[in-house]
């Protein structure tokens, strides 16, 4: 039987998934992006410096990643000489944005898949947040309201954590994480001007000088975030993993992996990065060739040609196109379907022996969970790889603040050339993010974004190969085909962002 499990909540935007279930097994899944705006058309003919502002509005959850990708692309197109401080400020902004995003994803977007929120009704302790929540939930449940204790109830039917301590601790941290994510965002706003949608980011730097006032505040805020990551986020994640070990085996995608690499050590475009780039195909990591990326649209709602390379991309919406079931295009690498995101980021780095801390953390947690590194391709693997990313990013950010020279330039002088082009490749929290800009007569002649969720939530490509999320859902056993909490857990592990995917 065919069942739509959308709108899938606790993710960004408009995602529906059409599943076909037989004997409680999902035998087919179609990922449907349901919202379209047309950013690549809005950008045409504009001043190139508008791009890092406009593209942030693709996504208000990870706007800084778009600003950074756009800045990299413009730096290449302008042949800009980025000062070392400028690159560090970009890193401080982008890295802090990753930290907030991981916390938001684990607690607000994912935890309610596993944690039993009703455990709070029997809370007997003295914590003021939990006591208030208990009274609020109990009062609502005793009332005649149509939907008491919304938005936390109703929820999908299924098995939740039964251990009271784990539930109560996680709920306390659900509330506390909302305070901590604000600190991460305050830190990035110091140099970005505000969050979301930073106005202070420009190609090659930021408008806010890195003086002691700014740096000391940044360090203090990130230290608080780091403390939460080590002492609350990681233990909560391991507790959930301990309660649901089967999710190390559920939700594998069936293609390759790609990471563009995250957080450059230096200002040059080819600087090595905290997490190394690469594409992982058939167990081997290769160097990425950006001209191997194409976008298929046979099953996407566009009448523009299929299989175009990034620099030739085209966008003609066709909402009634026959056979098309999603606004998301289907990007492919040399014809291969890929998963991008935390697992790709960590696996690609781990297999190259790039970052020593990544290797140590992966080996340690793999030992605790009794899994092999390949099982990072799973629901819990994606969650764990976010946490590993968070640990190494937080340390890197604090180290970067020590590398600043407050007397040196922090933003270059920008001159828009008559013509030029450039690629900007980085890792958004959700994965590999590419921006491409081409300039003619000092204006944007072409702009293209290939975004993490475009890869992960893609529909079939022209050959009929499912996208990463579709492939991870197919074959999954579901207890209740009408609700499919198991499928929801798989979807959430990818942290889809549909505004990014379609844009």
């Amino acid at each position: 039987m065919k069942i739509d499990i959308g709108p899938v909540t606790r993710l960004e935007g408009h995602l529906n998934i059409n599943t076909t279930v037989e004997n409680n097994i999902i035998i087919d899944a179609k990922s449907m992006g349901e919202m379209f705006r047309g950013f690549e058309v809005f950008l045409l003919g504009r001043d190139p410096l508008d791009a890092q502002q406009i593209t942030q509005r693709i996504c208000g959850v990870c706007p800084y990643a778009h600003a950074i990708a756009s800045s990299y692309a413009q730096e290449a197109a302008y042949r800009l000489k980025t000062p070392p401080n400028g690159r560090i400020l970009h890193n401080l902004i982008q890295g802090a944005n990753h930290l907030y995003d991981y916390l938001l994803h684990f607690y607000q977007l994912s935890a309610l898949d596993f944690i039993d929120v009703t455990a709070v009704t029997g809370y007997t302790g003295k914590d003021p947040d939990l006591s208030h929540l208990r009274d609020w939930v109990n009062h609502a449940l005793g009332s005649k309201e149509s939907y008491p204790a919304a938005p936390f109830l109703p929820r999908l039917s299924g098995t939740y954590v039964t251990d009271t301590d784990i539930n109560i601790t996680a709920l306390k941290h659900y509330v506390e994480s909302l305070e901590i994510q604000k600190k991460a965002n305050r830190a990035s706003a110091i140099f970005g001007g505000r969050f979301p949608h930073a106005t202070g980011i420009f190609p090659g730097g930021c408008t806010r000088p890195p003086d002691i006032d700014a740096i000391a505040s940044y360090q203090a805020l990130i230290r608080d975030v780091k403390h939460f990551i080590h002492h609350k986020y990681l233990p909560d994640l391991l507790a959930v993993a301990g309660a649901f070990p089967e999710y190390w085996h559920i939700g594998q995608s069936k293609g390759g992996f790609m990471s563009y690499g995250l957080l450059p050590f230096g200002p040059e475009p080819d600087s090595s990065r905290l997490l190394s780039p690469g594409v992982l195909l058939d167990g081997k990591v290769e160097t990425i060739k950006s001209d191997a990326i194409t976008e298929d649209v046979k099953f996407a709602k566009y009448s523009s040609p299929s299989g175009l390379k990034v620099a030739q991309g085209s966008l003609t919406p066709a909402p009634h196109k026959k056979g098309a079931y999603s606004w998301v295009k289907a990007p492919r690498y040399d014809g291969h379907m890929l998963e991008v995101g935390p697992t790709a980021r960590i696996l690609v780095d781990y297999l190259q022996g790039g970052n020593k801390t990544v290797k140590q953390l992966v080996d340690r947690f793999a030992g605790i969970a009794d899994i092999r590194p390949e099982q990072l391709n799973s629901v819990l693997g994606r969650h764990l790889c976010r946490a590993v990313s968070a640990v190494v990013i937080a340390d890197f950010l604090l180290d970067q603040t020590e590398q600043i020279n407050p007397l040196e330039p922090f933003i270059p002088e920008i001159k828009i050339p008559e013509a030029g082009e450039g690629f900007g490749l980085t890792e958004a929290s959700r994965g590999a993010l590419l921006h491409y800009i081409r300039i003619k007569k000092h204006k944007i002649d072409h702009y293209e974004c290939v975004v993490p969720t475009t890869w992960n939530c893609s529909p079939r490509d022209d050959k009929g190969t499912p996208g990463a999320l579709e492939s991870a859902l197919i074959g999954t056993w579901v207890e209740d085909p009408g609700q499919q909490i198991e499928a929801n857990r798989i979807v959430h592990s990818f942290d889809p962002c549909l505004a990014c995917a379609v844009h």
Partner: protein
Amino acid sequence: MINRRDFLKLAACLGASLPIAGLPSAVSAALKILDPESVPKLIYLQAQSCTGCSVSLLQAEAPDAVTMITRHSKLVFHQDLSAASGKQVLDLLDAYISGNAGDYFLAVEGAIPLGMPEACVIGTKPIADYLGAAAETMSGAVAIGTCSSYGGIPAAEGNLTGAVSLNDFYKTINKKPLLISIPGCPVHPDWVWKTIVHLVKIGLPELKNTRPAAFFSRKVHELCPRYHDFQQEIFAEKLGDKGCLFKLGCLGPDTFADCPTRWWNCGQTWCIDANAPCIGCASPMFAAKRDFPFYRNAETAMSGTPGEKS
């Protein structure tokens, strides 16, 4: 006994003509002891949005987001927070929008694709269908952010989907619901949460051009701590400079918002404090025209702007 919906309508009429301080004291006293169960529900829908306004709402400091949804309002549905998913959501929305689940306010983030309804779908129905039906049953609507207030970037030059603001959407389908617009790209969390506290505790706040007057009565330039620099002609000449940012294209002189006194991210900073020119994100003209870039050299900056006039 006056019921809640009549009361809100009455409050709306009073609020439209009087500042709240002018309300009879017995009325305002009565409002403050409302039974919590009668607090109106909020249904938060996302149209052509980026979720930036929702993320901004989570950055609220005092009151914070949890306080807002457990003490000052009842958030029945939000895409990013609701545990309910799939059919549960569609049933919930149908129950409220059909008028069967009690009073509610609608909060809408994002523009509405009037020319291409398929460009924003919830479940199987275009969001326009939900919004149209809600006009008959809701107590009022709050347009959250610049997209919902004015069309924003989805309605910028090159608009492929016929994206419009919530106000224009309702005008087109000949509906006249009570509507408050709270622009900003993103919206400032205080602007929304404090408007909602006002709606719940007192009634409709004073509005100016459909915006809450409390936050949008003065222009950024008028309130700017660098107004002195402007008067003394101490101008930033290049990005990263201190001083008045007017010559770099700052749109503070054309943008109604209280950012200079309110600041952003728990009072940590705001655009101009970081030497970043105001890009007019709360303005009806935000990002609207290709030929009107955010950043300009001195010559074009002095030549006048298409911003909102007072």
